[in-house]
């Protein structure tokens, strides 16, 4: 039987309900980011750049956009040499129809897929974080420590620690305690939702659980405590570069604005660690005689006759004369008429903002226009 070293499983089933309109019809990992990316591009590109070419993408909530985006993984160079991306969805079997209950359960229900690849290690990732990480280094650490499980952790300001799952470690990085959102955190090492498991052992746990208690639904809540209880080797691998959870409108806006900064740690122009995505065909970006574009990221297919400042514009955005876009994120296909004012806003794909519209949010109260929404313009009666 063919064997691979590491299979990555990206958990991309979450709704991300705190993103409101932006995740009403698409899963959170498919939400656009940074002008031409989607959130899941970071996890997928990290896999490829780390030399991991077999990736399962576990979906559940509104998966169509995500499926279309990921496809067979060609955009990330995954469709080669026995590699590939596979979309995994809930399905019906002779035992009935099953939805994935939690992170561990999603892995359990896809264990036949994992077994087909027969990996030594399973790298479990969350599909909704913005970061550049070499998983190979974490894997080296995992092997060095002879760990049963290695958990990627990131130091957070201690005052924010109560919002995270916190790992308490000894001086050898061994995890001795896990606390979910502790009121009085003993450490500032937050779980990144990045796990490396020895597959044989994890499978044993999940299989046995299935025939007994059926309690191992979630990695943080159930599996880590079970491992700790049985004295398995669990280690924390500290990641210290940029990492951002974009779970809310404000954090999504903030992460985009950080991304815009040319001196930012994420350094999108660094060709040693590319972030790949689908690249639609588009004409060159056209900045007309009347445009005024500064401190902005613009993507192909844009036609700009207005003023853009400190903003990100995605593919095929049109901005009419006299319009102002400031501190905002404009997703692809948006049409902005003339004399429109947009500040502190996120405008969803294919929205139409008619002449003279005034959309002004605040830094802590970002205004959101949903996908395909239409703002302003004549009402049907006036037409």
């Amino acid at each position, binding site marked *: 039987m063919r064997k691979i070293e590491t299979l990555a499983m990206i958990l991309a089933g979450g709704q991300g309900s705190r993103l409101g309109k932006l995740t009403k019809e698409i899963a959170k990992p498919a939400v656009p980011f940074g*002008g031409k990316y989607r959130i899941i591009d970071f996890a997928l590109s990290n896999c490829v750049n780390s030399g991991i070419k077999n990736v399962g993408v576990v979906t559940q909530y509104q998966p169509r956009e995500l499926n279309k985006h990921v496809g067979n993984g060609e955009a990330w160079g995954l469709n080669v040499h026995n590699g590939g991306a596979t979309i995994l969805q809930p399905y019906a079997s002779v035992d009935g129809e099953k939805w994935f209950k939690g992170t561990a359960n999603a892995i359990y229900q896809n264990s036949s897929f994992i077994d087909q690849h027969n990996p030594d290690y399973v790298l479990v990732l969350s599909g909704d974080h913005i970061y550049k990480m070499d998983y190979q280094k974490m894997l080296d650490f995992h092997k060095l420590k002879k760990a049963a499980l290695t958990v990627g952790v990131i130091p957070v300001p201690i005052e924010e620690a109560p919002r995270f799952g916190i790992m308490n470690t000894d001086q050898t990085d061994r995890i001795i305690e896990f606390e979910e959102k502790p009121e009085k955190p003993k450490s500032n090492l937050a779980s990144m939702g990045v796990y490396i498991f020895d597959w044989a052992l994890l499978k044993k746990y999940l299989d046995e659980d299935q025939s007994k208690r059926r309690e191992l639904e979630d990695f943080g809540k159930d599996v880590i405590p079970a491992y700790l209880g049985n004295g398995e080797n669990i280690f924390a691998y500290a990641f210290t570069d940029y990492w951002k959870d974009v779970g809310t409108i404000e954090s999504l806006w903030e992460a985009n604005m950080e991304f815009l900064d*040319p001196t930012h740690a994420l350094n*999108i122009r660094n060709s040693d660690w590319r972030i790949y995505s689908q*690249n639609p*065909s588009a004409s*060159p970006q056209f*900045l*007309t005689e009347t445009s005024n574009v500064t401190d902005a990221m*613009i993507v192909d297919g844009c036609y700009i006759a207005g003023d853009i400042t400190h903003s990100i514009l995605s593919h095929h955005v049109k901005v009419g004369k006299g319009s102002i876009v400031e501190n905002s994120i404009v997703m692809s296909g948006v049409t902005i008429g003339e004399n429109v004012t947009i500040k502190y806003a996120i405008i969803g794909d294919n929205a139409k903002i008619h002449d003279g519209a005034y959309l002004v949010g605040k830094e802590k109260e970002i205004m959101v226009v949903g996908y395909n929404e239409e703002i302003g313009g004549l009402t049907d009666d006036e037409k």
Partner: protein
Amino acid sequence: MMKNKISAILNLKEDDSKLLPLTEKRSISSLPFGCRYRLIDFPFTSLHSAAIDSAAFFIAGNGRSLHDHIRSGASWGLDSSIGGGLFPHTETAIREAVEMSKADQINSFYHDQIHYVIRSKSEYVVMMGTKMLCNIDINALLRYHQEKKADVTVVYKNMVQSSCNASEDETYLLFEGQATDRITNLVSFDKLEADKDKAPVNMDIAIMTSKKFVELATQAGKSKLRSETMLLFKDHLDEITVIGYEYTGYLKNINSIQSYFEANMDMLNEKNYNALLTRGNSIITKVKNGAPTFYSKDAKVKNAQFASDCLVEGEVENSLIFRKVTIAKDAKINHSIVMQGSQIGSGSSLEYVILDKGVKIGEGVHLKGTADNVKVIKKNTVVEPERGVKA
């Protein structure tokens, strides 16, 4: 179900001598254009829009630069292994030189074309080049051809006669009469009637049935005709019905540095930009992964176009900037074309200049051409201040 299947022959053996040094290591078909395209993208997009999944091309040299762009042809749906595919024919110049001397034998150029058309099992053949830059709807052309029951249909555009110049490589159509589109002759500009206000320029695009193609190509091959689309039927205009189909979109004959420069600048006119680049299906090119283009706080840009992955900190006006170009603070670019990967140092200025790929302009370098005499800097040149001053 295979109704109207069309195969395509792209004749890319086009004369590029007046485009030197841009064509030193590339054919006209792989000339960069409009910030992110190569000229081959235009006929390939037309094929794709017409659901044509099979094409053969013929190129004089080794086609290396073209191949690097096209690769498997997947971007344009030309990589099908069921009934389609892309069939490159390179080094035709050398082979033709050798074979033209052999009597009584169809030379390999025509032989290869006939072989390709028969194997494609197509009902029609469309023939195109890349020099006549346009965005044509092949399905509309085919419908016209079928309606007119023509043997061959040739595409032309009516240019305003007063603005036309005699150009050795352009030919014009003569029609049977005022109200008919049957072509009676192909002539040079000076043979046109001087009192007409329009000059129907031949765009070197033709469509015919595969059967008719095989017939004409066999004749041409035996008579050792040079392998040009129009030579297939030029001498048979009285025996067969050759019809003109009028194209009304953007057209430019890319046959010199000057016309190449003008065509690029034409894109800064919104009407041309829309007509050529966004009409119907937008032009398909090989997509590259790259970051969005960043315009800094100091950037000053007016009437300019950019591809992605640029870093713009200086001033850009009336110019076209390709991928991965960096423009430092206080650099000024005007009426210029800057190709992929070039770096413009701070305090430098460019006016009426074309920079080929990977040119480095040092700090404080000033380069200036004129609207009639554009300055061209060769690929990967490093221009240091002293040299710039000299220029």
